[in-house]
């Protein structure tokens, strides 16, 4: 009896049956999208539970993506900061980031729903590449929306998508970055309601997307548990750390630890040129409750409710909202939110190159930069999600460091 009451009173960090995380989430969508989103809502859990789905998903993650991704003890980095730092190497996945975990899941979902045309939005281009890849793998048509600014700063990924057979459509409205690419993808879905599945690339959007994406990405923390057991003799780290754009690598990294109160959660946002500079993407600090891309969440906006244009050197974090799960983690203080400037992230990225021989994506560099700002105990075990590799960012690194 007693035990049951405690469980009942314990905070729930997962989505509830109505599609909310606390007060955040839901499906604030125009009626035109209702049939598609409802179809997905009614089917996603059922499909994900099918043995044949699970088998195909796991097989592809193993043979095609190359999972499990290593959990690497970063010895020299740990020495420098006098603590124990493990890197979850999502950068070693096929296509170079965690994004592929989700696109594999969603393409199998789309197939089972009988869809023949795939659309996606992309910021850094990693999700676009991961989507183009699974479309090539399954022979489905692929259209990727990408902000004009991002097309310029992530040129190698644009080329990769094209080589993989995808059509890349520039988003020319607004700030011409991730937010606007997402608007265009949603408009495409409104215009093509029957044959098309929209593969959202982060833990955002109308319910059930945040939950579905989180479940596909949860393989990250599932692996961390048994891998850490091998390394440290225990499943639970003291901290899990991840950068947050929309929040998919973070959601996957936290998932199996959400209700383990002794595992502390750190979420790292992009401060851009600084929180107060007017050029930032630190939503948990600058945002207020609002509605973006179909969900209620924390959102950077004017007093009048117009969505603000964010800024970050990293295209993948350059988004004015966060997924509703993370808004809830911020509000309940389950997670500690930190924000890291462009400069600090770039420095941390270069440091990882030189201490560990790993060139990280600039998104991931934000998570690595916390060690300059927060002191950990020598025996703390900290798992950082190294969400992607830095190949796509070479141009930015070259310009920044005048290499």
């Amino acid at each position, binding site marked *: 009896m007693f035990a049951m009451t405690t469980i009942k009173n314990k905070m729930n960090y997962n989505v509830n049956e109505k599609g909310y995380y606390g007060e955040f989430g839901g499906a604030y969508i125009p009626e035109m999208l209702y049939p598609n989103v409802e179809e997905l809502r009614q089917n996603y859990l059922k499909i994900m539970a099918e043995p044949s789905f699970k088998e195909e998903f796991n097989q592809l993650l193993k043979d095609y993506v190359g999972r499990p991704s290593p959990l690497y003890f970063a010895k020299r980095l740990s020495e420098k900061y006098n603590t124990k730092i493990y890197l979850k190497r999502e950068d070693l996945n096929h296509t170079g980031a965690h994004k592929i975990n989700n696109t594999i899941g969603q393409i199998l979902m789309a197939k089972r729903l009988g869809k023949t045309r795939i659309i996606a939005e992309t910021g850094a281009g990693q999700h676009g590449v991961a989507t183009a890849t699974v479309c090539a793998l399954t022979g489905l048509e692929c259209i990727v929306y990408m902000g004009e600014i991002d097309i310029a700063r992530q040129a190698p990924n644009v080329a990769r998508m094209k080589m993989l057979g995808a059509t890349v459509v520039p988003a020319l409205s607004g700030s011409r970055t991730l937010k606007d690419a997402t608007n265009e993808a949603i408009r495409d879905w409104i215009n093509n309601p029957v044959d098309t599945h929209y593969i959202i690339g982060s833990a955002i959007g109308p319910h059930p997307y945040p939950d579905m994406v989180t479940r596909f990405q949860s393989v990250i923390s599932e692996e961390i548990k048994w891998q850490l057991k091998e390394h440290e003799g225990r499943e639970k780290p003291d901290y899990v750390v991840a950068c947050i754009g929309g929040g998919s690598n973070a959601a996957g990294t936290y998932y199996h630890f959400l209700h383990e109160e002794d595992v502390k959660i750190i979420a790292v946002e992009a401060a851009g040129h600084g929180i107060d500079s007017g050029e930032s993407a630190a939503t948990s600090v600058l945002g207020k409750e609002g509605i973006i891309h179909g969900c209620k969440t924390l959102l950077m906006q004017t007093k009048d409710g*117009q969505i603000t244009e964010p800024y970050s050197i990293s295209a993948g974090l350059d988004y004015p909202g966060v997924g509703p799960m993370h808004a809830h983690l911020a509000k309940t203080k389950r997670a500690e939110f930190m924000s890291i400037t462009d400069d600090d992230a770039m420095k941390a990225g270069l440091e990882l190159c030189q201490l560990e021989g790993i060139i990280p994506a600039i998104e991931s560099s934000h998570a690595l930069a916390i060690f300059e700002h927060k002191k950990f105990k020598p025996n703390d075990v900290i798992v950082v999600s190294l969400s992607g590799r830095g190949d796509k960012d070479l141009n930015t690194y070259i310009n920044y460091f005048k290499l």
Partner: protein
Amino acid sequence: MNRIQQKLQENKKLLSIYFTAGYPSLNDTVSIIQDLEKSGVDMIEIGLPFSDPLADGPTIQASSTQALKNGMTTEVLFNQIKNIRKSVSIPLIIMGYFNPMLQYGVEAFCKKCSEIGIDGLIIPDLPVDVYHEQYKSIFETYGLINVFLITPQTSVERINFIDSISNGFIYMVSSASVTGSQSGFGKKQTNYFKRIAEMNLNNPQIIGFGISDYKTFTQATQYAKGAIIGSAFIKYISKYGIKTIHEFTKNIKNTNN
């Protein structure tokens, strides 16, 4: 009885016009509304511009962006139209996305609308279910009619539900598309118009999206109580200026000759 309900009882096909408040210039709002009424339009949708209008095509997107650049805000709009009922008597509806209303405060927003004499709201991204559970009583307190959309993909069951909680008209989206992307109606659409007409719903339907001229207006109103024109009107005033509104209405009603 609300002005919308009264208007719907008139024995004629209704022409409703959408425009974006604050476009082409910030202070055009009142004169556009007055001229639309004088030109013979039956109902007006005042668009409250939003930075990220998901359900809108390029024309309304561009007018919204310009309106925001011109300085349009919720407060500015309310101030511009606070005395509108001294000069205009046709139904006025505010059409906008939910976030600006949420930030203003849904109740405060509704109260203000009612004080001004706004008759209804169209909020494309406020789902029927959320409205029904959380906001219906507020709308009712302030005598506002909330207008819901249906599309060719909306199930019969859902149409019946929407009909049951509507008390004005149903906004029938002509085809699966964002605003402004049609150039005429084919068999597929007229079949859909027919199918809905034959459902004999409690609420009359007004068709919107893709109505642009006399031909599409007549086609649509063959099956529905009225039609709404948005993008075509905005294109027209962008090209010819706001002094030509009566010409636009005449063209739609084909009363030029």
